[in-house]
């Protein structure tokens, strides 16, 4: 399985080279890749439906418990099949749809990367590995939404999707780490047996909420739903693949996968149920105002994602069954409808449903495919969508005690979905032919072949559901609720309440379609405040983050040297002061030697010179004072047994003063620039800094210290280094390499000084 996942990544790396050799061959290879992966996974069908699971593991970072472990059970097999099959249709379609786009190579790289990451995500058994793939899908989605990067809207909405799913990803990571800490392992499949341990832990609520935030952002659940319609800025193959069939189901997959380990609690079930139901109804209603084909489809996707989430929240055996059927059905018909929308856009030049009509004669094949997918979506017998909706209704009905409420919500949402389907799948093809920006033609084979396979599969799976997917779904449920179900998937359940409700839904949907204009007119009269829109808060948060960043940069990094210095000083005083205070107590000052008169005098001279340098009105006074300070320091070295230091200090100080005087001899007046308030501020800062340093020295010298190194140098200086002056021996022998470095630094400084002095000020003007 590692190779199936890695194949996409390798392909993405070598694709540009392949295209350079032969453009057509490259594109065909791109479509063959998902087909091959599909066949590979389909070959596991029998193994899985016999009740086996396949686990493989490769070491990645074993010291951290992170391995490339893959786990294939019914749930991951279902997802892998959907990903590769829809991938095949989309890749084939892209070859024609993106024809002539100069960035087509780039597009294939991104979308192949996405496919590989998505496969990795559903197959991973290691928490961290799964998270890495999870983030990779977000990143490839970012690149794909922003594919038309010269459009500002693409960039804005790509960023929006990335920020929301990426932010959710961070929450997910935190949640997963908490879970791993509770369970003590990184393997997802082993978590299923630890349900009681995890849900009983005191950190369970926070972990569950964090994981759910990750899932909700990824699967565009309310209140994070708004990124998905905006992501329709992406090219249509991307919308079909990522934003309806696969990536947005990653969150759903995660909830299903985590259900055995985290589920069963009120917190988990109720949160999922309520969020799912709200998303389902709310987003389906929002579709009413849309006239763009892709936007309409996006809102119906949101409605379906909400329904899927709600089914997980219900959590009964029947609901899980409905969940799986509906998931498969939706991936098939929604992928198809998106591709159809792309064909219409491609052939007519518009996606506005009010401008489309009567295309049936010009595009008959496209029409047939669209109608098949639409019928499945509306839940008409004998398509897979029918089976899906029947089961959804049945599981909503049996939910206690709010079954009636749920079924009303579900029907309401489905009425809108029927409405969307009529608008997208029927309206462009029937009625009178309308003039469009481009002269429409039937689409080429490469474009309709993929959607046709998906649409026909919807028919086959519906009519032979008991044969084809029954056994797979039965084993999928082990992954979701940790037990195998034996509720057969059937097309026909007889004349019952669900069937009646289905008929009612379709009728109401048709009615809504014809009454749409009236309703929208009424809706337009009601004005909602912007505060009810979740996207308002997103934008508010984004803009305030940006302005805070700007404010902070202006405040901390305003290009003002003294400001930087002040920040460093304040931080040092704060941290050092904090450490001193927590250290506590007064230092035990040991007055070993009482200060002699000479020492006091030198100290006073030094302090006076320093003050004089600070207060000097003329530059020369300041420099002389600096010299006095330097010589005083040298005197201190002499007094306290450091003759070498004193000699060096005398020499260096003399040099510095000479250099200073030479260089700044001819300069303008020595002006005081700073204002009074600033001087007072700086005085306080500097005073506190000085005080802090004094205190630090006091604290340190109050502690007794014995120097082992002194003993070592005392014993070895003469014998090994052949010298009596230990300081010199250290410099030229024990630490000779340091001295070499020091000489190098001086040499570099000398070169710099020389260059600065000799360089002409500007090439043009001398």
């Amino acid at each position, binding site marked *: 399985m590692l190779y199936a996942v890695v194949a996409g990544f390798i392909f993405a790396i070598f694709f540009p080279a392949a295209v350079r050799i032969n453009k057509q061959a490259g594109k065909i290879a791109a479509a063959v890749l998902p087909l091959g992966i599909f066949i590979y996974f389909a070959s596991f069908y029998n193994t899985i439906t016999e009740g086996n699971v396949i686990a493989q593991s490769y070491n990645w970072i074993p010291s951290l418990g992170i391995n490339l472990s893959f786990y294939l059970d019914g749930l991951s097999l279902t997802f892998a099949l959907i990903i590769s099959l829809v991938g095949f249709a989309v890749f084939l379609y892209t070859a024609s749809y993106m024809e002539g786009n100069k960035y087509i190579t780039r597009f294939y790289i991104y979308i192949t990367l996405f496919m590989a990451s998505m496969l990795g995500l559903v197959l991973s058994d290691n928490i961290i590995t799964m998270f890495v793939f999870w983030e990779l899908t977000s990143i490839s989605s970012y690149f794909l939404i922003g594919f038309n990067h010269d459009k500002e809207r693409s960039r804005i909405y790509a960023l929006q999707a990335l920020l929301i799913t990426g932010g959710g990803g961070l929450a997910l990571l935190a949640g997963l780490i908490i879970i791993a800490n509770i369970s003590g392992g990184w393997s997802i499949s082993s978590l299923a047996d630890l349900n009681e341990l995890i849900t009983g832990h005191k950190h369970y609520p926070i972990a569950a909420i964090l994981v759910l935030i990750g899932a909700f952002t990824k699967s565009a659940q309310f209140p994070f739903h708004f990124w998905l319609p905006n992501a329709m800025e992406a090219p249509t193959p991307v919308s079909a693949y990522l934003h309806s069939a696969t990536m947005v189901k990653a969150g759903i997959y995660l909830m299903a996968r985590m259900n055995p380990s985290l589920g069963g609690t009120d917190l988990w079930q109720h949160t999922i149920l309520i969020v799912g139901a709200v998303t389902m109804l709310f987003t389906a209603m929002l579709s009413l105002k849309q006239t763009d084909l892709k936007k309409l489809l996006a809102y119906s996707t949101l409605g379906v994602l909400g329904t899927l989430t709600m089914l997980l929240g219900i959590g009964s055996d029947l609901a899980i069954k409905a969940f799986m059927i509906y998931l498969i059905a939706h991936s098939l018909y929604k992928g198809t409808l998106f591709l159809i929308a792309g064909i219409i856009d491609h052939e007519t030049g518009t996606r506005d449903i009010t401008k489309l009509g009567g295309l049936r004669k010009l595009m008959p094949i496209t029409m047939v495919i669209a109608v098949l997918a639409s019928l499945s979506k509306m839940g008409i017998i004998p398509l897979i969508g029918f089976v899906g909706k029947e089961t959804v209704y049945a599981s909503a009905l049996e939910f206690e005690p709010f079954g009636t409420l749920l079924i009303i919500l579900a029907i309401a949402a489905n009425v809108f979905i029927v409405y969307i389907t009529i608008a997208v799948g029927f309206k462009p093809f029937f009625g009178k032919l309308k003039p469009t920006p481009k002269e429409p033609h039937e689409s080429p084979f490469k474009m309709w072949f993929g959607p046709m396979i998906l649409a026909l599969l919807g028919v086959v799976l519906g009519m032979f559901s008991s044969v084809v997917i029954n056994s797979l779904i039965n084993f999928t449920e082990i992954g979701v609720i940790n037990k195998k179900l034996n509720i057969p998937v059937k097309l026909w359940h007889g004349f019952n309440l669900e069937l009646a409700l289905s008929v009612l839904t379709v009728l109401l949907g048709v009615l809504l379609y014809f009454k749409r204009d009236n309703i929208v007119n009424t809706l337009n009269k009601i004005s909602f405040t912007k505060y009810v829109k979740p996207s308002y808060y997103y934008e508010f948060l984004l803009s305030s983050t940006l302005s805070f960043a700007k404010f902070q940069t202006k405040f901390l990094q305003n290009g003002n*040297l003294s400001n930087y210095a002040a920040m460093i000083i304040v931080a040092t005083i704060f941290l050092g002061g904090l450490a001193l205070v927590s250290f506590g107590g007064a230092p035990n000052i040991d*007055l*070993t030697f009482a200060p002699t008169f000479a020492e006091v005098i030198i100290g006073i001279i*030094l302090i006076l010179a320093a003050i004089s340098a600070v207060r000097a009105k003329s530059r020369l006074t300041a420099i002389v004072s600096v010299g006095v300070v330097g010589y005083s320091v040298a005197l201190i070295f002499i007094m306290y*047994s450091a003759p070498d230091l004193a000699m060096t200090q005398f020499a260096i100080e003399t040099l510095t003063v000479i250099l200073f005087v030479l260089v700044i001899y001819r300069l303008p007046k020595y002006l005081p620039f700073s204002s009074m308030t600033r001087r007072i501020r700086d005085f306080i800062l500097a005073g506190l800094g000085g005080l802090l340093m004094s205190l630090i020295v006091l604290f340190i010298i109050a502690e007794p210290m014995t120097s082992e190194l*002194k003993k070592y*140098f005392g014993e070895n200086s003469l014998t090994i280094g052949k010298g009596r002056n230990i300081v010199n021996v250290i410099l030229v022998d024990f630490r000779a390499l340091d001295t070499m470095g*020091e000489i190098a630094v001086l040499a570099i400084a000398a070169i710099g000084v020389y260059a600065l002095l000799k360089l002409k000020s500007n090439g043009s003007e001398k």
Partner: protein
Amino acid sequence: MEVILVIVIGVLYASGLYMILRRSFVKVIIGLIFLGHAANLLIFTVGRISKGIPAFISIEGTLAENAADPLPQALILTAIVIGFGVQAFAIVLFKRAYQTTGTDDLDELNTTDELIQ
């Protein structure tokens, strides 16, 4: 006697920090020099001081028990020399900057680093 050194270190740090915060380039260089002195004295003091017994090995080949610790001295010696390199470079750099820009005021030399808008 350490008390005097402690006070001297405090005053040197305070005046060094104060000068570092000034707008005039010359004053900032003076601040740099003062901070160098202060740091050297700090290392010197916390390495423990001794009076009148340098770290020399006597004719008998031994180091007096309460002689000065040679290691901090070696470190400071390096620091003094390196400090001089930095100071010399800063002084010449200042001269150059003044010749090119015609100002000694650091607040006016921040245009390349300023956030636009």
